């Protein structure tokens, strides 16, 4: 479903070129629940930006559902991001001026769904994440855990191929972290949502079926027994 082959990404900072990703290979299949762990500066965010179609590799190939993203125009990339990727961010990134349900509607709006249909679908998603009662609340009226539930509903509203969560529990207390993780695991097991979590919390990573480490720009998959592959 998502495949990276020898992906490299380097940045030009003045005269110096720094390579952040040194040939990353990754194959995500439908229904995966996967974590990528790594210290800061390891290239986590760069990798996430490429997987999330916000950035393109300097070399190597990235396929999403057998489409090579290298040759896509910015508009096509936006459209693909809209349909295939659902983002969940560490600091939620809900638009403060919009209510919960309006936030959830956003991906559908940019897809051209009518207002009525979008609100209906968004309402269903909010029910699923347990936020049906607070759909007209503004983000400022919600707790951290509630905001993240709304963000998860927003990520899933467009039925994406991949839910990409960047430190989804980074801003939450342990109790709420457990709640949010339960929700993600449930979505994976019950609805088969493909989930990739980028985290540096080993407890979060441990709950995922496939676990990866990123270290100095290279990705290493660990087997369930803890051995590197």
């Amino acid at each position, binding site marked *: 479903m998502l495949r990276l082959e020898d992906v490299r990404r380097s940045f030009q900072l003045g005269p110096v070129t720094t390579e952040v990703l040194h040939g990353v290979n990754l194959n995500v299949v439908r229904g995966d629940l996967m974590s990528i762990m790594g210290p800061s500066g390891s290239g986590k*965010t760069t990798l996430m*930006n490429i997987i*999330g179609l*916000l*950035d393109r590799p300097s070399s190597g190939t990235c396929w999403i559902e057998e489409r090579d993203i290298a040759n896509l125009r*910015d*508009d096509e990339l*936006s*459209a693909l*991001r*809209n*349909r295939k990727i659902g*983002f969940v*961010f560490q600091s939620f*990134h809900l*638009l403060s*001026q919009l209510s919960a349900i309006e936030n959830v509607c*956003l*991906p559908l*709006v*940019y*897809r*051209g*769904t*009518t*207002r009525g249909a979008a609100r209906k679908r968004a309402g269903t998603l909010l029910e699923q994440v347990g936020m049906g009662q607070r759909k007209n609340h503004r983000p400022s009226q919600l707790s951290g855990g509630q905001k993240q539930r709304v963000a998860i509903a*927003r990520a899933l509203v*467009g039925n994406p191929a991949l839910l990409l969560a960047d430190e989804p529990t980074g801003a939450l207390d342990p109790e709420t972290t457990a709640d949010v993780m339960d929700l993600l695991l449930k979505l994976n097991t019950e609805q088969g949502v493909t989930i990739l979590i980028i985290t540096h919390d080993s407890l979060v990573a441990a709950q995922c079926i496939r676990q990866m480490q990123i270290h100095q720009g290279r990705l290493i998959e660990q087997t369930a027994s803890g051995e590197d592959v």
Partner: protein
Amino acid sequence: MRVFSVLIFNGREAVSSLRRNGLRTILGLIGVIIGVSSVIAMVSLGEMAKQQARKQFEALGTDLVVIRNNQGQGQSGIGIADALQLADKEASILNSAPRILGNGSFRYGGKEVGYGSIQGVTRAFAGVSKLPLKEGRFVTIFDVNQNYTVVGHTIAEKMLATGTSDLLGELIELNGILFTVIGILDHYEESYALPVHVGANESVFIPITTSRRIDSNQPIDVIIAVADRSIDHETAKSDIQKYLNSVTPQGQFDITTAKELIAQMEQQMGIFTLLLGAVGSISLVVGGIGVMNIMLVSVAERRMEIAIRRALGARKRDIRSQFLIESIILTTAGGIFGTGLGLVATWGISRFTNWDFLISWISVSSGLGTAVGVGLFFGFQPAHQASQLDPIAGLQGN
């Protein structure tokens, strides 16, 4: 379909964003309101002035033709009989009012009561130049060679100041010759619609034949003719030229029709209106720059929001249209309020100047149109800037 629903969505978001930033929106609105209202008020002012000038012409008659003698002193020019016969000989001319202009000092009761024009005219002259008679009568053709005079307002006042209660029948000395006062004029308002300076208040009017009798060298300086309205003014003009050529082959005359003057006046007023509109537009441009400033601040403040929208699948053009719609809504609202204020200001000016209130629809539509245009023009750069923001940098908050 997609474009349409995103536009509607962006419109709703724009309105709520403008409402959220109330003070900033009001400041931006004020700039546009002042700009649009000044364009409308200025252009309407120009139109009203034009209307007013046209009214003055129409009060005198758009059928007037002024024939000015261009010959030097000492030349007799056209004769009185020929000048009067213009109307009889040419079917396109209904009436003609020649004038012999002299000047001198006026004495009454042994005292000097003025120095001014002695105008030798006929009854028709009072009609075409709208001389206001207060008492008595004007000179007529029956007064041929008679020493009768009609005195202007200022002269009459001075005569009354000597203690006389009734001026009619009194004798006045004009350049040492005694004349009987047969009429008194009211105050005369000079009209620029008549291209002949009358100066009736400081003048006395005598029969044209008397003028010629007193000084046979004084030529006719001007003939005010009345053309038939149903005949094209160019035809009337060429008829007059032909007639003048036949009676005084060596004569030199300037012939100006009222229609030519009106056209000239309208052209001048058009330039005047354009100038006023341009002055008004300056404030609209300043208002536009204010809007641009506000939009740039708004874009800078909302970098994170833009990045989130891009991550959720908004295309560059979706972001651009969101901000462009916001600035267009802002300036259009300013345009609507500005139109209202402009009309109120125009009404105020019309009350103050006593001119007819006139709504210039051209100015209203161009004011509104320009407001939308200003939103587009000055909103484009900020909107484009928003669309070009790097979502990765935005999401990281830098």
